[in-house]
Every structure is written in structure tokens, then in C-alpha cells.
């Protein structure tokens, strides 16, 4: 068990489809994008509610099958758009083309924001699998993901 809680993440079926479609479209490279949603609570305890208001497909600036970097301008646009809605970027998603949907050592060492959700879509099998995590100081906690209608 991890020493910290991870939010329950609510994705709509449409958001899920957009994420998975972008991951397939990125093949053979890894694909990536950002998640936005409301954040509540006092400073230093601010917490995503787990509701996802928008998903933002982004360019993988690495154009690589092994690594990803969210294109900075895509991040800038997503950040502006989400803040104009009163939300924030609450996490990032990327694909694993041939491995489990679980954070790789690179994912763990690169995870800079302890409040973010790190979502991973595996395309290894015929049916894509999606899992989400919070990563703090090298420790991983899984977020339950619920798919809502819409």
C-alpha cells in the first residue's frame, strides 16, 4: 500500500474514446496529452476532485516509441483553455505501445507534480487498457478510473 491517497478519476466514454484514438493515431510512437478538471481545497492541500472536464491530445515532441515529451505549446494552449474554464491541468496521459499500463522507471523519475494524475494506455493487446496513478517521491498509488456516460 502506498502512503498517500489517489483520487477516483471520472472519465466520460467520449473522453476515453478520444484518448485511446489519439494513442492509436500516434503509433508506432508513444502518444500523449493532458487532463483538465476542477481543483479544490486550501493551498498546499489542493486536490483534483477527480472529475475530468477536458482531455487535450498533444504532440509527442520526442516522436519516439520509447519516450514522450508533451509539446510545450500544446501544454501552453491546454493550460490557458482550462484556466479560462476555471479548471486546471490535473494530469497527463501517454501510451505504452508494447508494455503494461504501469509507470516505467522513466515515468516515475520524470513525474514532477505530486498532485497530478499519470494515466497510461497500453496498446499491447487487442483491447487497449487504461490505468491511472499518482506518483510521489518514487512511490506509486493507483487511481480508480470510472467511466461515465456521455
Amino acid at each position, binding site marked *: 500500500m502506498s502512503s498517500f491517497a489517489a483520487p477516483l478519476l471520472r472519465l466520460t466514454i467520449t473522453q476515453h474514446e478520444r484518448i485511446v484514438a489519439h494513442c492509436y493515431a500516434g503509433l508506432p510512437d508513444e502518444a500523449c496529452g*493532458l487532463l483538465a478538471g476542477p481543483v479544490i481545497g486550501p*493551498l498546499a492541500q489542493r486536490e483534483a476532485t477527480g472529475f475530468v472536464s477536458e482531455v487535450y491530445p498533444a504532440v509527442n515532441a520526442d516522436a519516439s516509441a520509447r519516450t514522450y515529451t508533451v509539446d510545450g505549446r500544446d*501544454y*501552453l494552449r491546454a*493550460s490557458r483553455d482550462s484556466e479560462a474554464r476555471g479548471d486546471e491541468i490535473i494530469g*497527463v496521459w501517454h501510451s505504452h505501445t508494447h508494455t503494461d499500463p504501469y509507470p516505467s522507471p522513466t*515515468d516515475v523519475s*520524470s513525474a514532477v507534480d505530486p498532485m497530478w494524475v499519470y494515466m497510461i494506455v497500453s496498446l499491447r493487446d487487442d483491447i487497449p487498457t487504461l490505468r491511472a496513478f499518482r506518483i510521489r517521491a518514487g512511490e506509486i498509488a493507483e487511481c480508480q478510473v470510472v467511466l461515465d456516460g456521455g
Partner: protein
Amino acid sequence: MAEVRLPTLLRVHADGAASVTAAGSTVGELFASVTAAHPGLADQLIDENGALHKFVNVYVNDDDIRYLDKLETPVTDRDVISILPAVAGG
């Protein structure tokens, strides 16, 4: 005064503010002003060699300062400077 927008990760170092205003004619001068007011931001923005930290991207309006004049990039009071962490993995 130019507006400097902070990512959520760094707001804890600026009393929770989403943006701060700062005076200066270059990005480097703005950062000096911002980090004087919020010392916790200094290590997040500038590395031990005085250069922009490699895990941080800085935009003047829509333009990445790495492709301009880095910390010497000129700014005016009408510019919006956005700081975003590099988001990457494998």
C-alpha cells in the same frame, strides 16, 4: 509590470497565486524580481549556472524563450510570461 503566470506546481512558492506581476526589461530581470519577492521560486527556475532550468519552459506570449534570447529575451509591460514544467516520461 509584466504578468508572469505560474504553473500549479510552483504556486505554493508564491502564496498560491496563479500569476504575479514583475518589473524588468528582460525575462531574466523579471525572474530576478519575482524570486526576490518569492525566494522559493529561485531554485525552480534557475540552475546553479544561472541558466534557465532545463525542466522548465518559459514563453513570452506564445514564444518559447529557448528559441529567442533565453533569459535575455526582451519583455514589455504588455507581455504575458508563462512558466510551465517540462512534462515527459517513457
